[in-house]
């Protein structure tokens, strides 16, 4: 039922009342209400022009201002609702405003984007009369699409890293910073992950806040983060492993900002982006952040392969080996070398390598490469566990059994990898606990 229908119903009731009660006044009142509705209908002729401006480069999770220029070309005041049609994961607080006849106004509101590359249209504008009876929707023009790129938000990561709470990732973090020497470097405020035994109690009492001793670390060389952005990492429903991995990479980059830091991003076929470990500091982290606008490929399963039935189609070992050789050529790649091999081949001499990779997609190759590299570099392998990223809502008995098998298989792989280099199996809550709680990844 519409609001206008309530008044039309009243009109009918008043006519009937007048007839039954032998009184002319209800009919006069009904006619007056009817003419009032005619007046409102005739007056409702909305004509609106609008155009939205938005910065084409945004940061993940950081509210960006969108400016909508609206012009009321009608002769009446109207109420304007703005409805943004943004990609999945975006948030907005599109406002409501009143626009007088022939008034033009710039409306500013915020949009909270998620990482990736998007094409977004202008919003839909709903014009409503002041009596809330009628409305008209104005759709965006066909050519209003704009391209925007959303990079990871370094500020957010920095802030959260500094005030974060106890982290499951503490052990890896310590490995990452290298073994410390007994030589004191400086004093600083306590941060989560710091050991209690390093608290300088005298300074703590004097300054009335927890102060820890920072020791000089032996690891002073360059660091390379090698990030897997292959298909398996990018698959996801709500969040993919790549969301987690890019945030983690950025956190690591910020934590290691005092060292020369580089990054290589590769996918299943080739190296996609590189940043040489020439600089350090926040500027270098900013440059690395610019490499991380990698979006999720939405799929029905979250970052893991479908369970294959026992009676399903299986290839022989020789056939599989043959296909793995010719498949890259079919997909347009000249050689059979994968993105990982290419990434490793362009590595300059450096001290420390941090691999962030899905260990299930190319396990054999990864093991070979790690065995090859471990003599020359200090290596840390961080593996987002796809099972921990699984969408709980889509779990059923069959999937659960299959997940358990995969979990056991994966535990074996992790054990094997741990024998080669320190390997950490990570879930979505690792390191990102506080960030997620604050909604930065929502």
């Amino acid at each position, binding site marked *: 039922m519409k*609001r206008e229908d309530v008044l039309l119903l009243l009109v009918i009731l008043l006519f009937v009342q007048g007839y039954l009660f032998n*009184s002319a006044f209800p009919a006069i009142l009904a006619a007056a209400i009817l003419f*009032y509705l005619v007046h409102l209908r*005739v007056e409702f002729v909305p004509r609106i022009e609008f155009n939205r401006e938005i910065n084409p480069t945004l940061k993940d999770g950081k509210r960006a201002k969108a400016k909508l220029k609206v012009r009321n070309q009608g002769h009446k005041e109207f109420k304007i609702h703005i409805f943004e049609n943004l990609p999945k994961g975006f948030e907005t607080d599109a406002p409501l405003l009143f626009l007088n006849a022939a008034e033009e106004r710039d409306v500013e509101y915020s949009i909270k984007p998620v990482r990736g590359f998007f094409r977004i249209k202008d919003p839909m504008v709903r014009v409503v009369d002041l009596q809330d*009876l*009628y409305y008209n929707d104005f759709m965006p023009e066909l050519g209003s699409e704009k391209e925007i790129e959303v990079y990871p938000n370094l500020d957010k990561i920095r802030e959260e890293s500094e005030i974060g709470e106890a982290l499951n990732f503490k052990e890896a973090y310590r490995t990452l910073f290298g073994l410390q020497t007994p030589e004191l470097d400086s004093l600083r405020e306590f941060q989560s992950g710091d050991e209690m035994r390093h608290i300088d109690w005298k300074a703590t009492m004097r300054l009335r806040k927890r102060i820890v001793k920072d020791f000089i670390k032996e690891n002073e060389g360059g660091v390379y983060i090698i990030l897997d952005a292959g298909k398996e990492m990018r698959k996801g429903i709500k969040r993919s492993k790549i969301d987690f991995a890019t945030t983690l990479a950025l956190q690591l980059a910020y934590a290691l900002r005092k060292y020369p830091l580089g990054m290589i991003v590769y996918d299943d076929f080739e190296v996609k982006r590189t940043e040489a470990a020439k600089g350090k500091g926040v500027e270098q982290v900013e440059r690395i952040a610019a490499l991380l606008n990698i979006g999720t490929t939405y799929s029905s399963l979250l970052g893991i392969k479908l369970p294959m039935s026992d009676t399903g189609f299986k290839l022989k070992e020789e056939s599989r080996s043959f296909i793995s050789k010719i498949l890259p050529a079919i997909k347009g790649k000249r050689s059979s070398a994968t993105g990982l091999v290419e990434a490793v081949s362009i590595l300059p001499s450096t001290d420390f390598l941090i691999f962030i990779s899905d260990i299930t997609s190319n396990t054999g190759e990864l093991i070979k490469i790690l065995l090859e590299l471990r003599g020359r570099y200090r290596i840390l392998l961080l593996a987002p566990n796809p099972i921990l990223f699984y969408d709980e809502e889509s779990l059923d008995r069959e999937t659960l059994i299959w997940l358990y098998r995969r979990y056991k298989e994966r535990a074996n792989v992790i054990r094997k990898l741990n024998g080669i280099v320190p390997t950490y199996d990570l879930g979505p809550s690792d390191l990102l606990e506080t960030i997620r709680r604050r909604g930065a990844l929502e």
Partner: protein
Amino acid sequence: MLFLIALIAALVGGLIAGLKIPLFLLPMLSISKIKNKNDIFLILFVIYALTIGYEFEVASIYGLDPIKTFSILIPSLLLLDAGLRSREEEFNRMQFAAFVVFFIIGWFLRPIFVIAAFGAFILYFSNSTRRGAFITIFSIFLLIVGVIIGESTLNMEGGTATQVVFISALSTLIALVFFWKRVERIEFVPLEWLRYKL
């Protein structure tokens, strides 16, 4: 401010016409407006209008008391419009005080009340477009002309029901001419707010 003026006008107009039940409904109408529950206001207004129709009797349109009739009719329309409006006008103290003074004087000198209510009505619809104002005035004019032309047939003893049928038929026909225009209409969801409370 417009709602306050309409409310006082409805109160004084109701007292002039000797209404009882509709006046008891005015506080509820005010609360629904203050709480911004526009759909609840709409329901209450339906009840308000029906109680006026029940209490205020006009045996024949040719013998109606114009002062009493307009004392109820104009404030009712003002109340409906002010209640539906989603944006309140800025409060103009001088204007408000002037209307209140005229309404109070109008309680004793009834023509002044009708003039003041009519003044408020013009103030309400002063931002209408020429087209809107013309069509509304033209519709009312057609109805009045119809009633005058049909006087010989309609003005007879016991002819109230015929007058009602005539008014309803003519006003519906006039309205239908302008109802051809297709517009999107807003949903009536009076209890939507309850969904969030429960």
